[in-house]
């Protein structure tokens, strides 16, 4: 995809989800750092995906004149990574719930997705935050949801006190989840526990990031505060919050259920903090 004289190089690194953290730490982070040090990278975007099999999508924005060289270099670096760690291509056995078979694990494929964002700072900041925050432990759905909750709560905290339109918006879009919440096994017995956990996460964010192991949120915090400074009214603030939600869904590969829960969790916190503010 060509944008303003630059090229987005889109590659998909196919690997088991349980290997994603290792891939982030040992391959993706060093390769991105190398490209940045060489001045070859204008921006980048990382996305977790299940399209065509479990994979991490990476979009690299490079100058058009460098596209061939960078693509070749990145191809070599990823293949070298797989070789060095004895990660041989693995073809899954069927049947599959799709018309086409998934791509083999431990391979890199090109051009399976496209992006036309031009240097989106929030998207890049989220990518850096994903690398910093998710590279240490095996990634699973719960971890992705918790990570998203931290990001979204941090955004909300920066916007407090909540404007009426934000309260109304989240109240409306979580109504369906709210009505059916008791039907989810996860919440039957743990509703109070969950609210406490959400509150803990929210309170965690009051501390300096380096004191409670949340240093990985730094990139996102800076980028979001910058973006928020440009939002002059409550509608623009809400738009920014919705954009963040969209980025989390897209880049973390959240399914509709997880995305609905994320909005529900935010609504819970909004309601709690609104009550507290009103009482005070």
């Amino acid at each position, binding site marked *: 995809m060509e944008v303003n004289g630059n*090229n987005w190089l889109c590659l998909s690194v196919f690997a088991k989800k349980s290997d994603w953290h290792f891939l982030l730490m040992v391959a993706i982070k060093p390769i991105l750092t190398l490209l940045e040090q060489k001045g070859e990278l204008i921006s980048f975007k990382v996305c977790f995906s299940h399209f065509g099999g479990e994979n991490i999508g990476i979009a690299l924005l490079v100058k058009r004149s460098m596209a061939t060289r960078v*693509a070749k270099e990145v*191809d070599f670096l990823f293949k070298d990574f797989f070789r060095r760690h004895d990660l041989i291509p693995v073809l899954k056995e*069927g049947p599959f719930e799709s018309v*086409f*078979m998934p*791509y083999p694990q431990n391979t890199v*494929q*090109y*051009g399976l997705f496209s992006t036309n964002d031009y240097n989106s700072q929030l998207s890049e900041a989220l990518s850096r935050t994903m690398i910093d925050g998710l590279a240490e432990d095996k990634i699973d759905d719960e971890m992705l949801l918790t990570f998203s909750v931290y990001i979204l709560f941090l955004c909300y905290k920066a916007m407090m006190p909540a404007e009426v339109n934000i309260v109304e918006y989240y109240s409306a879009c979580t109504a369906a989840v709210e009505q059916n919440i008791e039907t989810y096994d996860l919440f039957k017995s743990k509703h109070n526990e969950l609210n406490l956990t959400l509150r803990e996460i929210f309170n965690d964010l009051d501390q300096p990031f380096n004191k409670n192991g949340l240093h990985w949120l730094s990139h996102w915090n800076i980028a979001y505060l910058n973006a928020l400074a440009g939002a002059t009214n409550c509608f623009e603030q809400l738009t920014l919050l919705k954009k963040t939600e969209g980025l989390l869904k897209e880049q973390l590969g959240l399914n509709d259920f997880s995305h609905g829960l994320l909005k529900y969790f935010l609504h819970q916190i909004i309601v709690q903090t609104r009550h507290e503010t009103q009482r005070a």
Partner: protein
Amino acid sequence: MLKNIVENKDYPNLEFVLLDYNSQDGLEDWAKQTLTPYIHSGKLVYYKTYDPVFFNHSHAKNMALRLGSGDIVCSINADHYIGQRFANFVNAVFNSSPKKVITPIPKAYYQLKKTHPPSGSWGKVCVNKDDFIAIRGYDEKMIKYGNDDIDLINRLELYGVKRYNIKKAEYCSVISHDNEERYSSKERLNNVFKVYIKYLSPNRSEIIFLFKNKKYERFVLKDEAESGAHNYQTTYLQKKYHYRYTIEDFLWEEGRWEQANSIILLTYGAGFDQKLVSTKSIKESEFYELSNTSLIDELSTFNYTQYNLNMMRKNLNDKKIQVNESNAFGSGVVYKNFDRKIGIEL
């Protein structure tokens, strides 16, 4: 129909041909009640054929256009409006040069744009009857949905006829309806007995449809958007394809199937070539029987819409001008103006 007649009444040398393709929805009664004055004045001729059991777009259009007595014939679908003074417009275009085909289908028909006429109007075609006969009409092998009109225009162009695109919106007006009315998914799914799939690569799968009428269809489905994904160059080089999903090498095998114990026998051609699919030793043969109903539905729609498309692409690839070589086209017996005594053989 009535609107079309009224809006073009000022053009004297115009004949409307209404072909009743063994319609079961009361068309004949409606025509008797409504169109008799036009039949008596010679403005309209009503023909009926009792032969067809299923609707075949290409055959029906071939019949209707062969029945037209004018120098220029226009194919107008039942859901088309032709617009005010359309006949005058057609006459003017052909007076300037007779070697033309009037069509709403844009040259780059595979890249739909908002400025293009609605695809529901694409069936409208006006052509010199001699040219239509020379290329032997619509391809009657196209027995499923769509692309028969695109194929006709392609072959006319190969024959040296120039495309003249209709731009006026009024001439491309249609009665809108959804895809379910175009091709009923229920009916299609009812005909499917089983679907087998063999995964060849992440962008190629071999599909076998077994139908309840003991016919089968077999093809390799290809996702062009993902071809060459292993090559890093595909990340910065523009991919060139007109259709994302295609049939590999245009090969769409058809034949009959039968089951003997756990073996499914596929027979095609003259019976010399036989292929085996084992239902029991699925792993050995690498074919999986699909059980996911939404996937079967998706593939069944694909099958229905790709069949003609594949044939159209093959004709274009082969630079084929004439079709229906082995048999007459638009053939059958028709009866004129409700007279069931004298059949006209086409």
